[in-house]
């Protein structure tokens, strides 16, 4: 009869649940003897026995009867519990499991061995073969162990013989035989965590579709409520609406929780899985589970089961070493796997960690190279963690032998895609020899979320608040702007370099619509989103408002568009796509370390400008005849004066002005550069004077603009003129940096020209080290012009490599201070500590004009110190060296 089938089906469900409880109970018992555990075990078995008897499942009845007997004796005190009983109990539990899954329900199975083991006389003898060395129980007891959602510990005082309702009553309203805890006993307090949907212990079985439907309807009500709220926003008489709105919020919360399930339910089976693996692989492994009361949407939990199983199998199979290896490495002979779930900022984070051998990054890299997954250069640039993350690629399994457990090369990538399909993210950390940790980030719920509604072009998108970190508006006058490196837009957010993406880029489409509305104000607005550990920016045009929306999952037909979490209907009936930060990350291949590494070594001008950040200079900015703007290092400026044109004297075709007794040679820039001459009618001229080789010269300007403290970001000048050091932008105006020395040389070559060191019998060989290509070239040209042989290096490390290769090939090292990889001080130290190189004098070149830097350099051991922009000081330093040699 249909009714009987129904009843039998319910019984099967019952057995499964009781068995799960039984297993959990065995685990608890193993750690610490407690009569409550015995009671629980007893009850579970008793239930199974009752039902099995009713349905005529004799073998099951037989086995459960024996178990019941043993447990009863322990409980009554007739027999003392001995940890040696565990293997027999576990064996019985496993057997019951097998029987339950067997189509014949074990009727044909031979359970004699298992039964025998349960007989008291046999207990002590069975043990030692099966028992694995267990770690100090006290240690384990310290780990918080919590029972699964379905399990509650009974208060000693309540009636132990609580018989479950007979299966015939089991149809729709079978109550689980859990007894509510009276919270008085201390064990109960330790073991029980109040369950949200189990407040007083009463539970009820409800069909899943009903719950799903309830969820859907609630969603609709929420949307309709939002619409009503909008409609009556202005009304004065909306008390009823407001109170209903509040109640609907509460309703929503509660309904949401019906879908939430504690992960513990899925976690318990790993106890058995690890036990089995441990036996199978002959490696003692224990699993420690934490946070099993953490709740997740049930659909996510279901999908998690397989990936977690795979990960744990992997840990046991590949991660954990053999006992001998472990002991040799000084590790505990029993390996540990930690499985933990916790709530963190709107996401559930699940970690699987082992203290095994870790992932050999070198091996993975080699495999990846062999299969052409990455190039040689990529391999060299990768960090240990990045290389380990490669194992998520399909086809990359380094297990020498594909075992039946794992290592098929199809595992990890499937785990990754499963997690990502759920809207989550997965990360991996490993240390060779210490272990591996896999971190899974999952959204807590897929459905109703408070979100920010934003506009991009004509479209509106919704972003759940849990994925949103902040909103940033970049104005033209801000210090940090959105910059472009190698075609990628990036932004410096409090020291972290994040990529800035754009919907156009993410949802790229041939025949794509223009996404962004042009912004006259030149302000750029973007959101900072996070996915796991990665942060990134997303450009938007404007923000609409915040709304609680029901996220409807993407229809099958659009499932491949990972960057969408789903769609939603807004309060005004419009449809908006909901963005998924995890999905966007995945589709753009953003890995957490990649960015900073990628750009750390890049050599283009733009990047170096970013890295040259520390070098700030004081510049004097002036204009020559209204149009052209120039700058000179302020450190070189002696005085700024205003002179009357009428006071200028001309001596042998040169113009001089007499100021306070000093005769100052005047230099007009239009005579050396293609500039318009100063207007004739200008009566007053500005000059700033500088001292070159003890001669004071005055540069004429039409106006002195200002003096600013700024980074020296120089670009190679468009004009091939030696007196222009470079070109930069000051307040958005193109400004030429003037080289006063070259200028002076041009003006009076005989006075100012530096003598080439032709007299030296041997050309001096210089190694010039500077990370800015511009300065490198400049210095090279300069030193070659005075008769030296110049080699170049990009940073301290390179310089060191060159020097150690040919220690006798150089006479002098001239180095920048601020450089990536190894700076000037680092280079100096390395040179001085190397007996082959310590004879080399090193001169420091820098943009800093401060006294203390000079002192610092001298005391560090630099032979000399010079300013990059001040040829005279450079020359000074070099000539000292040359003369002294």
């Amino acid at each position: 009869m249909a009714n009987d089938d129904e009843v039998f089906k319910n019984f099967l469900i019952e057995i499964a649940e009781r068995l799960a409880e039984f297993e959990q109970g065995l685990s608890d018992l193993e750690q610490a003897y407690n009569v409550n555990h015995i009671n629980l075990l007893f009850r579970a078995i008793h239930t199974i026995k009752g039902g099995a008897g009713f349905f005529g499942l004799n073998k099951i009845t037989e086995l459960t009867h024996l178990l019941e007997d043993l447990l009863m004796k322990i409980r009554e005190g007739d027999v003392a519990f001995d940890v040696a009983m565990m293997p027999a109990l576990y064996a019985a539990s496993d057997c019951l499991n097998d029987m339950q899954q067997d189509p014949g329900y074990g009727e044909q199975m031979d359970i004699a061995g298992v039964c025998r083991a349960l007989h008291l006389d046999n207990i002590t003898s069975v043990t030692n073969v099966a028992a694995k060395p267990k770690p100090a129980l006290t240690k384990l007891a310290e780990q918080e162990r919590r029972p699964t959602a379905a399990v509650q510990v009974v208060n000693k005082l309540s009636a132990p013989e609580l018989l479950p309702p007979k299966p015939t009553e089991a149809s729709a309203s079978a109550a689980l035989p859990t007894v509510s805890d009276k919270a008085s006993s201390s064990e109960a307090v330790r073991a029980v965590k109040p369950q949200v949907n189990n407040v007083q212990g009463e539970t009820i079985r409800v069909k899943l579709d009903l719950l799903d439907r309830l969820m859907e309807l609630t969603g609709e009500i929420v949307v309709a409520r939002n619409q009503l709220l909008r409609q009556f926003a202005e009304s004065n008489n909306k008390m009823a609406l407001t109170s209903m709105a509040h109640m609907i919020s509460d309703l929503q919360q509660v309904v949401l929780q019906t879908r939430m399930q504690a992960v513990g339910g899925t976690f318990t089976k790993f106890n058995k899985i690890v036990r089995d693996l441990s036996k199978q692989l002959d490696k003692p492994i224990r699993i420690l589970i934490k946070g099993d009361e953490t709740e997740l949407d049930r659909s996510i939990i279901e999908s998690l089961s397989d990936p977690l199983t795979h990960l744990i199998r992997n840990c046991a199979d590949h991660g954990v070493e053999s006992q001998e290896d472990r002991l040799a490495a000084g590790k505990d002979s029993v390996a540990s796997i930690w499985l933990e779930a916790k709530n963190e900022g709107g996401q559930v984070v699940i970690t699987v960690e082992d203290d095994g051998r870790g992932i050999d990054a070198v091996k993975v890299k080699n495999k990846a190279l062999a299969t052409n997954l990455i190039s040689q250069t990529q391999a060299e640039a990768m960090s240990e963690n990045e290389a380990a993350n490669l194992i998520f690629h399909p086809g990359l399994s380094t297990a020498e032998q594909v075992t039946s457990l794992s290592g098929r090369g199809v595992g990890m990538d499937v785990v990754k895609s499963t997690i990502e399909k759920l809207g989550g993210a997965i990360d991996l950390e490993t240390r060779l020899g210490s272990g591996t940790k896999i971190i899974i980030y999952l959204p807590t719920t897929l459905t109703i979320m408070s979100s920010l509604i934003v506009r991009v072009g004509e479209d509106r998108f919704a972003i759940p608040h849990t994925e949103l970190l902040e909103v940033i508006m970049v104005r033209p006058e801000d210090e940090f702007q959105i910059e472009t490196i190698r075609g990628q837009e990036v932004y410096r957010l409090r020291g972290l370099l994040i990529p800035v993406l754009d919907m156009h880029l993410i949802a790229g489409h041939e025949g794509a619509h223009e996404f962004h509305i042009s912004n006259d104000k030149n302000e750029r607005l973007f959101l900072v989103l996070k996915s796991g550990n990665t942060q990134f920016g997303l450009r938007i045009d404007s923000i609409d408002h915040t709304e609680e929306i029901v996220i409807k999952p993407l229809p099958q037909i659009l499932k491949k568009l990972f960057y969408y979490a789903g769609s939603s209907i807004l309060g005004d009936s419009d449809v908006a796509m909901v963005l998924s930060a995890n999905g966007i990350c995945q589709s753009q291949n953003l890995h957490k370390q990649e960015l900073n590494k990628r750009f750390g070594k890049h050599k283009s001008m733009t990047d170096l400008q970013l890295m040259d950040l520390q070098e700030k200079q004081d510049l004097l900015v002036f204009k020559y005849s209204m149009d052209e703007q120039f700058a000179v290092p302020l450190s070189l400026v002696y005085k700024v004066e205003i002179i009357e044109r009428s006071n200028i004297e001309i001596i042998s075709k040169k113009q001089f002005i007499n100021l306070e007794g000093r005769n100052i040679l005047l230099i007009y820039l239009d005579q050396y550069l293609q500039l318009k001459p100063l207007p004739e009618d200008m009566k007053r001229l500005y000059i700033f004077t500088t001292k070159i080789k003890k001669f004071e010269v005055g540069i004429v300007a039409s106006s002195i603009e200002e003096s600013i403290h700024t980074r020296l970001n120089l670009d190679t000048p468009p004009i091939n003129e030696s007196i222009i050091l470079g070109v930069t932008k000051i307040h958005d105006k193109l400004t030429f940096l003037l080289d006063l020395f070259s200028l002076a040389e041009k003006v009076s070559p005989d006075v100012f020209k530096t003598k080439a060191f032709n007299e030296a019998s041997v050309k001096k060989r210089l190694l010039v080290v500077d990370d800015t290509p511009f300065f490198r070239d400049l210095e090279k040209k300069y030193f070659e012009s005075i008769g030296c042989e110049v080699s170049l290096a990009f940073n301290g490390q390179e310089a060191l490599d060159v020097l150690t290769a040919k220690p006798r090939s150089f006479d002098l090292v001239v180095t920048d201070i601020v450089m990536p990889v190894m700076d000037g001080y680092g280079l100096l130290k390395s040179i001085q500590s190397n007996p082959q190189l310590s004879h080399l004098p090193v001169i420091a070149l820098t943009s800093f004009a401060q006294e203390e830097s000079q002192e610092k350099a001298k005391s560090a051991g630099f032979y000399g110190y010079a300013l990059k922009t001040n040829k005279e000081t450079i020359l000074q330093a070099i000539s000292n060296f040359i003369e002294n040699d």
Partner: protein
Amino acid sequence: MLYSIFHLGNNLIGVPIYTILEIVRSSKFHPVRGASEVIDGLINLRGKVVTVINTGIAFETHKVLISDESRIYIFKNNAELKELTDIDSDEDMSPDNIGLHVEKIEGVINVDKEELQPVPTNMAHPFYQHVVRRGEDFIIILKPSKAIILNSTETVKP
């Protein structure tokens, strides 16, 4: 068996009525950026979000535009199809409701099983199931589930 007939360019195409949930006027679609062009966009059907496929683009002829005459067929989803007890359907539609944007609806015809003829090989198309002759008209019978499955979006790589 009843079929609803619609125009597509010069062709007449029919879909089995039992697969249709309702027919609505076409109005503004909410575009899905990144989806292939065959997807017109999403519409809000009394709280349900329905993805609409553009028939013209699906058949690679031209794009069906919104007009006074254009309509959207809202097809039933798998759950709704299952509820029909008297028809044994082999259509595997989709867990979600999908819409088909068509230019103009002609009407409804009743077709006997015998009238259903196989599609001539020179006209073969994965979406076509049968053809029917009605007087001078040549009507192509569509298999809606095929049309939907074969238009499932691939991610467009930027």
